[in-house]
């Protein structure tokens, strides 16, 4: 039986670098979807991503990938500033933008729903899942990124996967 894989992708990272599926070759990574001006769930998700970053800072086997769902406003410059403000390394945690349709389409592959909804204060409706992908591009775990108890468990799943690779 063949399991679903994350399809190939090409995005632009916060250092104006190309970020593709090859960037994550041989590594596991945690992916999420957010935008910098998000007043609802994103800051809490990002804070939990930061927790993951800090816990696995020394592991060369784990990377992080945050996609903006607001490529119009989240330019490379803005993503660069955001990552810089968080104080994270740009070869460990990638903040990417790209073609809007590509981002919305791949969100679906990561079990995330992203919908533009102008009636909402921020203009977007999206689910806040953090998703763990293994080196073979299979999804191995996910959790609600706003739920700190779930995120704790998720980090144990990451440990388990890292022991395996």
């Amino acid at each position, binding site marked *: 039986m063949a399991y679903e894989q994350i399809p190939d992708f090409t995005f632009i990272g916060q250092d104006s670098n190309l970020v593709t599926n090859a960037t994550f070759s041989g590594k596991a990574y945690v992916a999420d979807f957010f935008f*910098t*001006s998000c*007043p*609802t*769930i994103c*800051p*809490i998700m*990002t*804070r939990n991503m*930061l927790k993951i970053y800090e816990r696995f800072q020394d592991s060369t086997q784990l990377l992080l990938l945050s996609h903006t769902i607001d490529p119009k406003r989240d330019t490379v410059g803005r993503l660069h*500033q*955001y990552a*810089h*403000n*968080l*104080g994270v390394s740009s070869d460990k945690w990638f903040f990417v933008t790209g073609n809007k349709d590509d981002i919305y389409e791949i969100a679906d592959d990561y079990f995330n729903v992203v919908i533009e909804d102008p009636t909402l*204060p921020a203009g977007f409706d999206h689910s806040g899942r953090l998703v763990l992908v293994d080196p073979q591009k299979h999804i191995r775990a996910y959790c609600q990124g706003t739920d700190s108890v779930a995120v704790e468990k998720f980090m144990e799943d990451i440990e388990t996967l890292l022991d395996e690779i």
Partner: protein
Amino acid sequence: MRSNLILFLFLLSFFLFDCESQPHRQGQILYQNFCANCHMDDGSGLAGNIPPLAQSDYVSQNQGQLACIIRNGMEGQVVVNGKTYQNPMAGIPQLSEFEIANILNYINQAWENDYGYLPLKTVRENLERCKQ
């Protein structure tokens, strides 16, 4: 007689413990609904991107501006505890004067902040100023 005394002590305990530990209940609920997504439950903000409200020199020193910031939001650079922040904050225009006062008085004493008490009258005057 004895049971009356027990009842009295029981009721007294509500005042002693409940009111003491929860002096700004509405403010806390409003904070959780309108502010905590960004500034977090513990008032610590988000590293480098969203400023802290807990142990914040800006909150302590700009008491007169806070009501207008909640109502109208904020843009441009702001320096908090020596760090510069520049992400805009959206205002929350639907909050009443009373609700804003409750949020501010919650923030002023939460997380070991000790920034005093803002009477409704003061908050109302501060809000008048930002209308102009």
